């Protein structure tokens, strides 16, 4: 195989899921013959006739249909055309899917794929990162793969789980990331990954911010600093152990998120470290997030709205002086 993009990894994971498990089917707008707005299901309708279904523009009913099918033992994967439109299926996700097992003992193994995160020129309604919103609800697993390997193996993991999974795949990484081959093994479910070992600061992050953080770490390495970068991979469950072990090594924490701060992943990470690993901290734990406005359209605004390698590096320098 030649080089595989993050997007292609998602397509191949769906292909494998369809091939391996007759319970799997795909449901979403334009995912059939057309192959999806981003081509994440390209040619799958042809390869798996009748198992890749175009839905009407009905996010609420799309999720409802998936839930009903899951109750009957199927393993549906729903594609939202953009994460932002999942707000229209919000009720079914948080009130029906998330509660079903607790209430009735019947599992609800659905996967809802959310093409997430910002890209230049996409504006307020095609750029959102909703992982914190869904992670608030007990009963939902929320995954945020940041690498080609994870895009592939975590999507398969999501399909295998008996719980509803919100799969936040990052659009900025779709074409941006490439790998030489598909992974043949993966970290255990729910484990965070030390993406770069270091000893001076722990950066905890996920999704597209992983790559900005790695770039910032690289930048600081020329100043002689050794930054550890933790890729959360799955934000619910959140791998507090790996985070705490890292902070134990570095004594310093910067949580970086592309979404808004209030109640976001960075809030949860900092709150856990502060309460469970207070004694490990040599300096106040810090957060870096998007600015507190809708995601702006103009690329110049967008580039300032979200954290970047540059702003992460500044935050790290600041933190190193605290």
């Amino acid at each position, binding site marked *: 195989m030649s080089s595989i993009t993050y997007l292609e990894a998602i397509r191949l994971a769906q292909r494998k899921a369809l091939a391996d498990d007759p319970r799997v*089917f795909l449901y979403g707008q334009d995912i059939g013959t057309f192959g999806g707005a981003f081509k994440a299901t390209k040619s799958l309708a042809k390869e798996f006739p009748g*198992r890749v279904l175009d*839905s*009407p523009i*009905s996010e*609420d*009913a*799309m*999720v*409802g*249909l*998936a*839930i*009903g*099918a*899951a*109750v*009957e*033992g*199927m393993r*549906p994967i729903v594609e939202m055309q953009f994460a932002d439109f999942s707000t229209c299926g919000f*009720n*079914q996700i948080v*009130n*029906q899917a*998330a*509660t*079903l*097992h*607790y*209430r*009735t*003992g*019947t*599992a*609800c*193994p659905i996967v809802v794929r959310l093409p997430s995160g910002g890209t230049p020129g996409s504006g307020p309604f095609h750029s959102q990162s909703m992982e914190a919103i869904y992670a608030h609800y*007990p*009963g939902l*697993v929320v995954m945020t793969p940041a690498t080609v390997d994870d895009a592939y193996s975590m999507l398969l993991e999501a399909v295998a*789980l*008996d*719980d509803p999974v919100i799969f936040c795949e990052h659009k900025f990484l779709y074409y941006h990331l490439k790998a030489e081959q598909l992974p043949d093994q993966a970290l255990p479910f*729910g484990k965070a990954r030390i993406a770069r070992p270091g000893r001076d600061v722990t950066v905890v992050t996920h999704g597209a911010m992983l790559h900005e953080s790695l770039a910032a770490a690289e930048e600081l390495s020329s100043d002689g600093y050794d930054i550890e970068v933790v890729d959360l991979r799955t934000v*619910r*469950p*959140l*791998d*507090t152990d790996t985070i705490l072990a890292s902070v134990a090594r570095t004594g310093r924490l910067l949580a970086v998120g592309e979404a808004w701060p209030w109640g976001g992943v960075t809030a949860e990470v900092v709150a856990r470290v502060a309460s469970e690993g207070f004694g490990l901290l040599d300096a106040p734990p810090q957060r870096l997030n998007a600015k507190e406005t809708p995601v702006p359209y103009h690329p110049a605004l967008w580039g300032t709205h979200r954290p970047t390698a540059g702003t992460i590096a500044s935050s790290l320098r600041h933190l190193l002086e605290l």
Partner: protein
Amino acid sequence: MSKGSVTSPRKAKESPKTGISPASKTPGKSSSKSTGDTGTGAGVTRELARKGYRTMLEARLLEEKLAALYRSGKIVGGVFLGRGQEALSVALGLHLRRGDIYAPLIRDQAGRLAFGDTILDTLRTYLGSILGSMRGRDGNIHRGRPSEGYHAMISHLGAMVSTVCGGLVARRFRGESGVVGATCIGEGGTSTGSFHEGLNMAAVEKLPLVVVVANNQFSYSTPNDRQFACPDLTARAAGYGIVGRRAVGNDLIDCLRVIGEAVAAARSGEGPQLVVADLLRLVGHGEHDDASYIPESLKKSELGRDCLLLARESLIEKGWMTEEEAVAWRDAVALEVEETASKVLREPAPDPVDEDWNAFASLGREGEQ
């Protein structure tokens, strides 16, 4: 309002439905032959009507007990009854078989019992017994056994339409045919986006879905003129390209006939069916509500006539049931309800210490902690 009218999206279907619903596989679920007559119970057998009446009686007496338990403080939260709607509700439950999918809503005690739910589990769920299907985690009308095709409604109106669609899609994937999925909803619930999306989706997928709208003229206190503006909700059917039917909501025989036809049509591949029936609920929205907003004139109209009394009269008139049987049934059901309630009242409540407090099916408690 004419009995048994059918509105069809295509001209070819404008005549009243004729069809034979497949024979039931479970004991007690009788087949109904429709001859296409309107305004009569043609096709409704004696056996089915008797079963209908008996189940309505069970629902009525059980609900009266629930109300009493609520008043005496034994049931905490709310009690939501289907009094006056038993005929419509039971008709749907009776025409479904084991293996079908059923998502009852607020006022479907009768349909639930007809589908196979029990007096015992109803009481357990209302009283929060650990032995109930919901184990005290959810209660009252929010009960079911989804893995047995009996969905447990969430409160959000309209949400169950698409869920039933999903069950039917799953059955289709598995190559099962002859399965029907059904849900009931109030006329107020038809204003939700979920209802619309679900019905449209069912139509696109040509699913064997039956949606029964119990138009009891009020959603909580809100009268229909603040809820929708069309003279007849069956008019919605054409907009989805599905069949719309009308039943007389407090006439057991008519409900059995019309819903029987709808279920049979769905079962034989004719796609989604919308049944609308006018009626009144003869209680408040919940037992906390005295329904004083329902005008006396409406209560005294045809709509306000009690379907249980009407069914009793009609069965006796037809010679399908005797006065004595009716009395004996009432006594037997009353006894069963009382005995079951006393039993359940002695059952253990859930113990917070024994609970696993885990919302996940595949993760340890919270996975992360």
